């Protein structure tokens, strides 16, 4: 029910290709970090230090640029949680 909080993490899945290609795409669109998901084929986390770690509005510009890249199968900006710690 609370408004989502969008983070500076993006899940990016590629049609194919390896870590080198993922690093290229990340660099091309200004992302500062790429790390491979151990359990998703061709799945990566992109980090963008220029974006706030938590913000109320999605970063459409980054989302659309990634989605338009022919090498990219899917790009999802990650949402944060209102998690209450014990």
């Amino acid at each position, binding site marked *: 029910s609370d408004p989502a909080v969008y983070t500076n*993490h993006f899940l990016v899945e590629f049609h194919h290709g390896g870590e080198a290609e993922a690093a290229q795409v990340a660099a091309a669109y200004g992302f500062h970090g790429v790390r491979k998901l151990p*359990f998703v084929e061709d799945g990566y*986390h992109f*980090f963008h230090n220029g974006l706030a770690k938590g913000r109320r509005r999605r970063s459409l510009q980054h989302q659309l640029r990634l989605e338009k890249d022919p090498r990219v199968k899917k790009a999802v900006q990650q949402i*944060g*949680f209102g*998690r209450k*710690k014990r």
Partner: protein
Amino acid sequence: GYRDINEIDINMNDPLFTKQWYLINTGQADGTPGLDLNVAEAWELGYTGKGVTIGIMDDGIDYLHPDLASNYNAQASYDFSSNDPYPYPRYTDDWFNSHGTRCAGEVSAAANNNICGVGVAYNSKVAGRTYIKILCLICLYRLNLTRCIPPFQGRGGKGSIYVWASGDGGSYDDCNCDGYASSMWTISINSAINDGRTALYDESCSSTLASTFSNGRKRNPEAGVATTDLYGNCTLRHSGTSAAAPEAAGVFALALEANADLTWRDMQHLTVLTSKRNQLHDEVHQWRRNGVGLEFNHLFGYGVLDAGAMVTMAKDWKTVPERFHCVGGSIQEAQKIPSTGKLVLTLTTDACEGKENFVRYLEHVQAVITVNSTRRGDLNINMTSPMGTKSILLSRRPRDDDSKVGFDKWPFMTTHSWGEDPRGTWVLEVGFVGILPQKGVLKEWTLMLHGTQSAPYIDQIVKDYQSKLAMSKKEELEEELDEAVERSLKSILSKN
């Protein structure tokens, strides 16, 4: 069990390994050499947690971390509070979200990969889970993979093995008031620091079963728990009893590799029998022996976990006999608690002798108490078993000024009478400790006895004649003998 430090030839190229004093303590950061989890012995026996998955119930795991990725069990992960199949520590409103990743590293950070440190069970897997209150959903999730609660249903009936940190409330708190820590179904773990003293945040608590290590008193930055940290980093500063609990989970993973058939009760018995006093010490709470000679401390439980001893005993362990539950007695009439001095109540019980559910060898004892007072935080409750073992069920908690709710059928639990014979007179003492005079009334004390009917260790193989197992087994045999002699005498007399 003495081993010369130099005999240990575990070589790891992980940069933080030599700072992980809780694995192999050679005196780092003013610590005490030899005061550690004795994992080196377990590793040398070949146990490193293979085939075991530990669920970390916290705010997700950084499964991208190079030291965790290879040991991340995605299949067994799920965050039910946000329907996130692979809970990842992302934004939270208070940014306190590194805990899951740090815990995961303590359990199963990969070894010899030149990254951060090494997990206690560095070949085990970790799964990201979520908050406890939705566990029933978890139970339904991939039953074959998931350790479920209620414990007796998980792992095909062997039961969920559930480790919980005893709490960091310090002298202001008592973890018997924490429903999770004081539950019989959780192994409540406290922490000592690297020289055997208690942490400043230590809570007194009779439900604590054993201890491992964490930070807690020293400014030395290297006296904390070294492990993985968020976003591919490492840390030397994991802290609190919450950093101690994952160490215990790692030791239990080693024991499960040694014997996958261990039930949740077997793990608690093994913990009692193999934990060591070592050089743990506290000025206030001295080490004592209970009625069957088991040494315990009100803060450390039965001592620090000893991975080497646990895997050795686990390998040939026979599941303990069935557990029974007996209501030892109950006082339901309201009793006034005096402002000065104590209300002393006694309950004499035969522990349901002669009935189907009689209990002869204790495991957990619960005092279900209903009490109201003008200031709940000033209540102090002690209970003494027929064999003379005294437990502090509730110590003073200066910040709790409740005068309405009180405790309503709260099951205060103690592990200190483990193995004792419950028959006889139990004594409950209730009083106030505080600045101003208070009033109160106790409305119920029900004594719940949980344990076995036959000697739990009779079938176990004794390898070390100095061990607690050997001592307990000797006690059991002597008592069985006494009772057999008594029975035969009675039958002879009745014939004559």
